């Protein structure tokens, strides 16, 4: 399974990518929307895990762009907000929604569930 992690916090996505690799998930990361689009144009991912709030291009706009490039990709939103209101909005836009800080096992389980045919 190939996963693209997008968040403006490089420390977060880089560490998360390394932790996922320990669990057999191939993860690449980008720290803004442009890098994410570049990466997606060159290769396809099973799931994109992206933050809702990012500079220049927010998560929802980025999702729409990436969907146009790779319509088959699944999306999981992350956010610093943990409220139900955010969850409601995130659920409407993404396949799944997770609040920071993440539980790595919960993330892996979510990814597996999302890519399951």
């Amino acid at each position, binding site marked *: 399974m190939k996963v693209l992690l997008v968040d403006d916090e490089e*420390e977060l996505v880089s*560490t998360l990518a390394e*932790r996922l690799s320990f669990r057999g998930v191939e993860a690449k990361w980008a720290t803004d929307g442009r890098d994410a689009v570049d990466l997606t144009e060159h290769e396809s991912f099973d799931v994109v895990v992206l933050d809702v709030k990012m500079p220049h291009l927010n998560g929802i706009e980025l999702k729409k762009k990436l969907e146009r490039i790779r319509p088959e990709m699944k999306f999981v939103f992350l956010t610093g*907000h943990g409220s139900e209101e955010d969850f409601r909005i995130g659920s409407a836009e993404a396949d799944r929604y997770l609040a*920071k*800080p993440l539980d790595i096992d919960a993330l892996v389980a979510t990814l597996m569930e999302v890519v399951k045919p």
Partner: protein
Amino acid sequence: MSEPITTRGPTGARGRDGNPALPRVPVESKKYSLNLRRMWQLTALLMILVSVGPLTVMTAIDYRVTERSAESEILLHTSRVVSNTKLAVEFSLVERMAALDFIVEDNSIAELRDCARVGEILRNLQMSFSGFVDLGVIDASGRQFCYVGPYDLAGVNYRDQEWFEEVRRDTTHISDVFPGFRHVPHMVIAVRHDLPDEGFYVLRTSVETSLLNKLLSNLEISGEGDAFVINREGVLQTSSRRHGDVLEVLDLAVPDYSEATRVYETMSSDDVPLIVGTAYIPHTPFILMIVKQKAALMEPWSATRRLLIGLLVLSLSIIVLVVVGVTSYLVNKIRWADKQRVAALHQTEYTAKMASLGRLGAGVAHEINNPLAIINEKAGLIKDLFQYSGRYKDDAKLMGIVDSILASVNRCSAITRRLLNFARDTDTEPVLVDLGETITEVLGFMGKEAEYRSIGVNVVIDEDTPEILTNRGRLQQILLNVTNNAFAAVDDGGHIDIAVGRKGPEEVLIRVTDDGCGMSEDQLARVFEPFFTTKRGSGGVGLGLSITYSLVTELGGSVSVESELWVGTSFLIRLPVDGARNESVAR
């Protein structure tokens, strides 16, 4: 516990003026934008001045005009009486003098030397005129050669008498009143008749003063008045009612000479105000005087004055009462409106503050969540590295440290999540709310205080308690306010019980009970009034329960309170299961 008081809050009870009952809270200027005491004073003062001023001035003017008019009327009337009486007295004396003139013209000196003839003339005079006592004829040498009358005056010589000198000079004479030989007051009238041989003789008569007394006593004089005649030395020529008997000296000053009738005011010897009318009677030594008591004359006017002053005092009292009443009513209205406005303003400020706090909380939570996530992932990576490399897998201390970091991150995460949930916009659509979860969430904010102060909080949720459809943000505020109140009421080591259960098919009841200081009956009756607080001095502004009341009402519920001083307090909050029916909740 005392009887529950289900108050409809500050807008419930109604005062005598029809407005909701005004607070008995002591007026504190900072709570009101208007200085109502000064407004009351200014309004009442201005209204009283505007209404009482003109009335008083007009009454005073009318008082003076009426008084002057009455005085003027009295003076005019007195002047008229004096003038008429003067004419009557003058006519009476002139009439007798004319009678003597007629006698000397009608009789020759030879006839008048006949005393029998003179006696016949006297009888005729006494039949025609009153007052004549005797009649005598005196020659130029002053010897009375013929006398007819009750005394033996024949042959008396008047040559050295003053009156005889005067009649030789002026042809006529009317004497002052004197007692004479009989000791009966009388006057002498004498006329001179010139003879062809340049000699003359004088016809003289005595006239009793009863003539004048009768004339004056017939006068009807108002004001306990007195009419009398004095001579120019101030000796009474007739008797008077109040100023002495005939031939006594008058106790008033002799008026200055004037040909015209005079009326003036003066004071008696015993300081009684008098109205005095005087007239000098021409060709006589007499002065007619009419003296009246001013107080008696003014009595009808004084009665009117008393009535006028009574009416004025009554009118002023009514005006002052009405002005004070109306002003108090209006200022009371303004006070009520102002208080409502200030309370609304405070509530708006409170809501805005809560919204700001919400936004601030959300921002802080978001900003903290990101570094928390990094800490979480870094610590997780360390753990992964230890586990997957196997190098420190069995180092319990290192693994314990990493697990401790991860647990702390989870704890922080729980706090930020709670903060975010609480800080959400309160004007959202109604949602299904689990009361147990919401209470736990609210109590989460107070966990540390409860721990530090050893306050036992016991929550009991009945199993059949349904989820309710309501505005969760407002419900959280309500629970937070009431719980805060309970925490403030209890001492360290106190207890707070929160019980939730179904109350009928359409309501749930949340009961928050503390074993704190409780409230008196008076405090209990005012507990939902804006600005009423028992926590003044410790930061309380008295709006928490007032706002709680408003929020519960907005959610379609009601709130009541039971309390007993030094025993404890219970707040009972009833909320509808289906709050969507309530328009405020839906809004």
